[in-house]
């Protein structure tokens, strides 16, 4: 997640609240170290594919 690109649309939080948190100013952050728990891969990809600012990137491990 690139904090400089995030403009607070909160689409990631709306679609995957298990993976993202959002502060009072709309800034989103990835919960934990960014590793996606098993079973939440689809939600993670949905968050990436819905960010209008291209602020979230999927990194294969």
């Amino acid at each position: 997640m690139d904090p400089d690109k995030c403009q607070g649309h909160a689409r990631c939080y709306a679609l995957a609240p298990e993976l993202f948190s959002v502060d009072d100013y709309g800034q989103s952050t990835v919960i934990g170290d960014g590793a996606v728990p098993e079973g939440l891969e689809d939600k993670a990809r949905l968050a990436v594919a819905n960010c209008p600012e291209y602020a979230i990137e999927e990194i294969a491990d």
Partner: protein
Amino acid sequence: MARTEAVQGWDTDFDVLDAGYIADPFSIWDKLRTTCPVAHTDRRGSTWLPTRYDDVVALAHDVEHFSSLEVGVIPFEGDEPDDPVLLYGLPPISADPPLHTWTRRLLLPWFSHNQVEGYEELTRQLCVGLIDGFLADGHADAASDYAQQIPARVIARILGVPTELADTFTGWVRDVLEFADDAERRARGVEGLLGFFIEQVEKRRTEPGDDLLSELLHTEVEGEPLEESVVLGMAALVLIAGVDTTWSAIGSSLWHLATHPEDRARLVAEPSLMPLAVEELLRAYSPVTMARMVAGDIEFEGCPMKAGDKVLMNFPAANRDPNAFEDADRVVLDRALNRHVAFGSGIHRCAGSNLARMELRIAVEEWLARIPEFHLADPAEVTWAGGQVRGPRILPVVFG
């Protein structure tokens, strides 16, 4: 609402108030995108109309060359009194940094995800109450009896003013936005709205509450209290931006569901689709088109833009661009790849987007829970408002 001369060609003489454009802008954008992706008009001043996703997003991010000091495209006659009450316009929407930055930071916490959750129950009760009022009739105007009634009441609560004033608010906001080309109506709306807030500000100086207005009055920036012009501008913005826009999104979504029984049935059967469906309806029927003002002569996509020209931030057309969305003109309720920009893009992203999204979701959820089957009473009766905010204004539907 045909108040304009016939358009001589959409590439060089477009008119966002043209009745045909208001009824069906989509086919016009589709054509422009392939023939003249940044159209121009000299109506109401030199104005540009981009229709491609990438262009609209690029313009929104270039805040240095495309200023927000003017976000309307309809000039307001008699707009420039010597001592304007709204010295700074409606910050942060009509401001550039640095004024934009700190006024926006003051507003954002009032519309944060957590804060908005606190308004969810109020919104739900409001929707249920409205539906209870017309359910037994077997029919209703989904725009004026329902969609129109919701946002103004929620905003009234946030501003800390009586919710009974909601209809008055709606009247002022329509005068300012929808009838902006009618100088008399617009002046009446501006006067009503400002007079109201000036009175409310006076009251809260002596009797502060826990509402947005009171907090703004008791906020200091760099050791100084906010100027009254800034407080009034911000309060007026919250009202103006939060009423017509969300109401239009709710109305358009209900129009879609009334005219697409397969989508309606699917959403009733699969309520878990709601979060994605709300985003898809926002994409397909984005209500808002703000403007920017060209700061200095610049060439954009081959167009010679001059300082002072307006550029319409055509987010609704961007959201229908087939290069950005597969099957762009079709509503796909569970669309997975959906980087829509209904709430804008960049630093002016709609500050109330969490609230708008919540109101739209609850309004559609509660409607479908009680009225799972409905259709247009007569398609010919439906009317749309357009210009810079598009949505249905008369939308009679029959239940069952």
